[in-house]
Structure formats: C-alpha cells, structure tokens
C-alpha cells in the first residue's frame, strides 16, 4: 500500500430522503445534504461529493452551487463531485464554478469528471448522445488546459474558440485535484493515464476485483506516458448499520425499487433477493455492520491498490435517520477499522 493515509469520501446523488415516512421536498433535501456534509466532517470523513442528475427525486442539478454552500458550513472536509458530467458542461463555466468553490472553501475544491451513465443531460442541453466519446475527449482537453495554463488559445468542434483567454477568478496554480471517473471502458482508463490524472473506479455491480485489469492497464499506461504513480479510488453504493441483518434489510427496501426502475429503463432483469445477497457478499454493494463493510473495503483496497474509497450513501427515500447513522458509522467505525486493517497488512508484507 502507499504511505499516504487512506482517504474516505461520501458521495450523494442528491436523492430525496424521507422523514418518519414523509418524503422530503427537494428544498428540504438540499438542506439535508448540507447537514450531512457537516456530519461527515464531524465524524472525520475526508471528502464530500455530489453528483449531477436531471431526473425526479434528485436535487443535484447544480453541484458547485451546493458545494459552495457546504464550503461555508464546514472547515476541513474536501468538496468534490461524483461525477460532473463533463460531456454536457462547458469547461469554461466549470472553471468559473470550481475556482469560485476553491476560493469560498479556502482550497478544498476537487472534481471527478465523467461521461455519466445516465444520458438525461444530453437532450436537455442540446447534445447528441452519438458524440458521447468525442465530447468528453474535447472537453477534457480544454478543462485541463484552462487549469494548467494561464492564458488559453483553443479551438474545437463543440464549443466556440478561445483566444488568449484568461478566466476569473484565477485558480490556484496547476488547478484543483481532478479525477477521471470510469465505469469500465478501457479507453477512459488510458485517457486518464495519458493526462496523468487520478482514477476513480465506479464499481456499481459485480465483483470489484473485475477492475484489477483496469488498474493494471492504468498503471502500465501511466508508465508509458512517463507519469509517476497516481491515486486510484473506488466509488460504490453501500449502507452501514449496527448489524449485518439490519443493514441488509433496510437497504433492500430502498435499493430494490430503484434497481427495478433502472432495469425497466435499461432492459435488464429486475433484482431478486438472491442477486442482492450475492452483491453484498461478493459484489459491489458495501452493505453491513461496520466490521463487515470495513473488511470488505480493506480487501478491495488491497486487491485494487486503492488509496481512496467513496461510499454512495443515499438512495431514493432512505429515511434521514438511517442516512445519518450510516454516515456516523462510516466515519467513526469503518474508516479507522479499514486504516487499521491496511496498516496491519502492510506490516506483514
């Protein structure tokens, strides 16, 4: 393992919560996220990130705006995204937003950019899904040039050219930490390596160890591009409760309808309890007691050479008390336990 301390993040997709059976409205959920980010900081978690979605039940359409409010309500926790849909954003506006966030937060801003698994933003903002790959490639190039160069002259196919453009507010030299989120495309992995950017693996189904070949590819591509080692992180869904049974039963109640909806939308089989159990025991769901989740994270971290793990803790209508307890346990029990397990392991090596 690397010497750097293992980083723990919380990811939210801005999903509406319930309170004593009542579904919170979008505004209440927005404010709940601020509260949860404060809670995450209080229990010692390192990063709080929000996604970007354009569908009912999600309140994260304006991630940098949300994060800026959180910045003023916290002191230490880093603030990021999970992920920013770079393909349908303007890199110039993103620069404005994240340099502003970095200012408000006194240097705590970071970004994970990705191509997104949901495509709602494409028609909404007038992009063609068939340009999926080219859009990301072009926008990443511009975003990184804006961060790394003071004055940018640029032209491309999807946005107006820039001529000796200096954006404001100025960002700290070199830019903010920018990760590439990948779902499983080798091209994306190689691209991250080419830019020398850290890699965030979105492991949302199946055995996490499947991603070992991506990790291997990433490390080879980094060497080939002449870059040193870069951090690798993992994002997965999960839920921590006091016991394994409680965690599994609670999460099932809220996970099942969400996955059933996705199954209808994307044409795969609806979830069954057996499939669910399999995902918990051997797959991508980090659901259980603190000890169970810690062991699973430590094992995966070892297998994939991770230095960061982000738990996506919210899911549609999950009660706010359950969300709070999960955050609490992740920070106060899971994180220290994982660090302890990883330290022990490195002593044995």
């Amino acid at each position, binding site marked *: 393992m690397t010497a750097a301390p293992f980083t723990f993040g919380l990811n939210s997709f801005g999903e509406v919560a319930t309170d004593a059976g009542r579904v919170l*409205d979008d505004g209440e959920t927005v404010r709940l996220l601020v509260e949860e980010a404060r809670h995450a900081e209080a229990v010692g978690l390192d990063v709080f990130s929000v996604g970007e979605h354009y569908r009912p039940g999600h309140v994260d359409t304006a991630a940098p705006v949300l994060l800026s409010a959180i910045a*003023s309500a916290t002191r230490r926790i880093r603030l990021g995204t999970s992920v920013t849909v770079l393909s349908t954003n303007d890199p110039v506006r993103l620069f404005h937003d994240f340099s502003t966030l970095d200012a408000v937060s*006194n240097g705590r801003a970071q970004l994970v950019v990705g191509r997104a698994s949901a495509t709602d933003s494409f028609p909404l903002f*007038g992009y063609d899904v068939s340009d999926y790959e080219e859009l990301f490639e072009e926008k990443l190039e511009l975003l990184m040039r804006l961060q790394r160069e003071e004055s940018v002259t640029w032209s491309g196919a999807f946005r107006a050219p820039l001529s000796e453009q200096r954006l*404001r*507010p100025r960002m700290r030299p070199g830019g903010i930490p920018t990760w590439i989120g990948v779902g499983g495309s080798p091209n994306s992995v190689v691209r991250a390596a080419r830019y020398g950017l850290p890699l965030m693996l979105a492991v949302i189904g199946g055995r996490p160890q499947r991603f070992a070949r991506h990790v291997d590819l990433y490390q080879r591509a980094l060497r080939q591009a002449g870059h040193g080692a870069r951090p690798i992180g993992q994002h997965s869904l999960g839920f921590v409760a006091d016991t394994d049974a409680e965690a599994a039963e609670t999460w099932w109640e809220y996970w099942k309808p969400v996955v059933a909806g996705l199954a209808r939308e994307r044409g795969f089989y609806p979830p069954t309890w057996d499939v669910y159990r399999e995902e918990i025991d051997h797959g991508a769901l980090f659901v259980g007691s603190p000890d169970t989740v810690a062991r699973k994270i430590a094992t995966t971290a070892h297998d994939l050479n991770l230095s960061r793990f982000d738990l996506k803790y919210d899911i549609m209508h999950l009660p706010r008390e359950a969300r709070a307890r999960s955050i609490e346990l992740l920070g106060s029990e899971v994180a220290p336990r994982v660090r302890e397990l990883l330290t022990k392991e490195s002593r044995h090596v």
Partner: protein
Amino acid sequence: MSDLDFGLDTFGDVPVDDSGAQVSHARAIRQLVDEAVLADEIGIDVLAVGEHHRPEYAVSTPETVLAGIATRTRRLRLSSGVTVLSSDDPVRVFQRFATVDALSNGRAEVILGRGSFTESFPLFGYDLSDYDKLFEEKIELFVRLLDEKPVTWEGTLRAPLEAAEVFPPTESGHLPTWVGVGGSPPSVVRTARYGLPLMLAVIGGSPTRFAPYIDLYRRAAAQFGTSAHPVGMHSPGFVADTDEEAREVYWPSYRIIRDRIGALRGWPPIRRAEFEAEIEHGSLYIGAPETVARKIARAVDELGVGRFDLIYTAGAQPISARLRAVELYGTKVIPMVRDILAG
C-alpha cells in the same frame, strides 16, 4: 415606509489589503462573503452580486458565491445583479438559482440583464449581433421555466425542450425574478409585458432622468394587463465617517476603474470636478451617513421606487474601508432614510 427595501450591490471588485497590495481573486471572494455576513447581521435586506469576465472583478458566477453566503446568513436576500442571461442557458440559470433558493430557505432572487459589458459573448460563443434576439428568446424561456411545470419549447438559439421538467422546483413555487435595465425603452416595455419587476441601473446623471422609464413601465403594464411591481434602482456610492473621507477613499480607485472602462467606451478621462458634480447632483451616493441618506431619500421620493441598492464597491478599495461602508450603510444610512421618508 416598511415596504421599502435596501440592498448592497457589488461586482466582486478585487480590493487592496492594509499594505495597499491587491489581494487574490480567491481572497476577494472570501472578503465578499464576510461583507455579506456583516450585512445580514445589521439587517440589510438584500445583497446583489454581478457577473463579469474582467480582471478587476473576481465574480464570474454569482450563484456559486451566493450559495457560499447562504449558509452563513439568515435573513439577507441573495440576488444576482445582473445575470447575463443573453450568454447563459436559462435552464442552467433556473437550476442554479433554485438551488440557492433551497440552500437559503427561500432567499434567492435573480436579476436578469443583457449586461453592460460584452466579454461574455465571445467567451461563450455568442454573436454580439444577436444581442437583442438572444435576450428576447432566453427571457421568454426563462419566464416559462418560472411556472415550474414541464416545458415544451423551441427557439433558434438553444436546443428545444420536450415536456422537460427542471429540478429542483422551489418551495414557494416562485423564484423572484427581476429585469435589470440600463436605459433602453424597449427593455422597459418587455419587462412590463412579462409582468416582472424592474431594476433600473442609474449610474450617471440626475436620477430624475429615469422618471419617464418608470412611467413607461407602469403604462405598459396597464396596457398589457400585467402587474406593475415596485421599481428598484441601483446606483454607485460609498459611505465613510465624514464626507471628506468618503470622497478621498473613493476617488483614487474609482478614477482608475472609471477610466479603464471609459477607455473601452470612448469616454474621456474623468476630472475631479465631474466627480464632485456627480456627488452633488448626479448618481454618486458618496459621503457621511447623513449626506448619503438625504440623497437616497430624495431619489427614492422623487422616483417613487420601492427599492434602493447601493453599488458599494468600485475598484481596488481598502478592505477595511469597504467593511466600514457596509456597516455605516446598514446601521446609519438605512435607518436615516426611513426616518426622513416617514417624516
């Protein structure tokens, strides 16, 4: 006169520290957040933050700054001043301000405008020759979004929408939206046509010059059958303990920024006598609290406006003087104006 609102406006000017050195953009933004916290504590009604893409100004995205202010304040309303709608996407603008509204428990408002600067056009790939058309089309879409119902829309400058739902909706069901106008009668009429409140940028000359615009707004609203809201005005100024101090602090940084912008617009350099005349008879609200209060009260009375916003920053001013100006405006000027108008 309790229905009268008082605000502060800023473009996020980069100030200087005690040693006279310009601070970083990042520090300028944090300074602005601190000033907003002070404004909230002393009961100022609203803070409006402009959008600019120039080196003198640290704010290019007002709503991200306003969000940073939202969680440190309790009463202050959070506004843009203005959001350059012509070179932005109405859908994004709505999403972002609706998020600020949620974060602030219903304190967000947006002032839409065409912008008095043009840097955003090439930056975001818009053609200045579409100046009018851009605003017309985008405000039409924005007003549709304000209904907070699925929108089907088609135009020439943005992708069409097909029963699009835009999230998050506001809790009140209404995002307060103004239109900022600099002096164009068609803009005044358009604002009345949409039934939106009007914010007049009165940045030079006698405020009474703007009386015909207010009259036009009311007549147009009557003709369209829309509601005419109380009109707002915003003007530049600065408050210090004495008249002399206010002028001496304001003049050097004002002169630099005024001449820099003037050079772009073909204005001759400003002379001290013009500056003094603008304070005496025009649209600079500079002086001790009583001087500024009397001047605001006169303008408010003459124009019959329901809101006055003081643009309190102008170039590289000292941070300490800015903070003092905010404090005096909130604790002295506003109560004095209310007293004068009540008496």
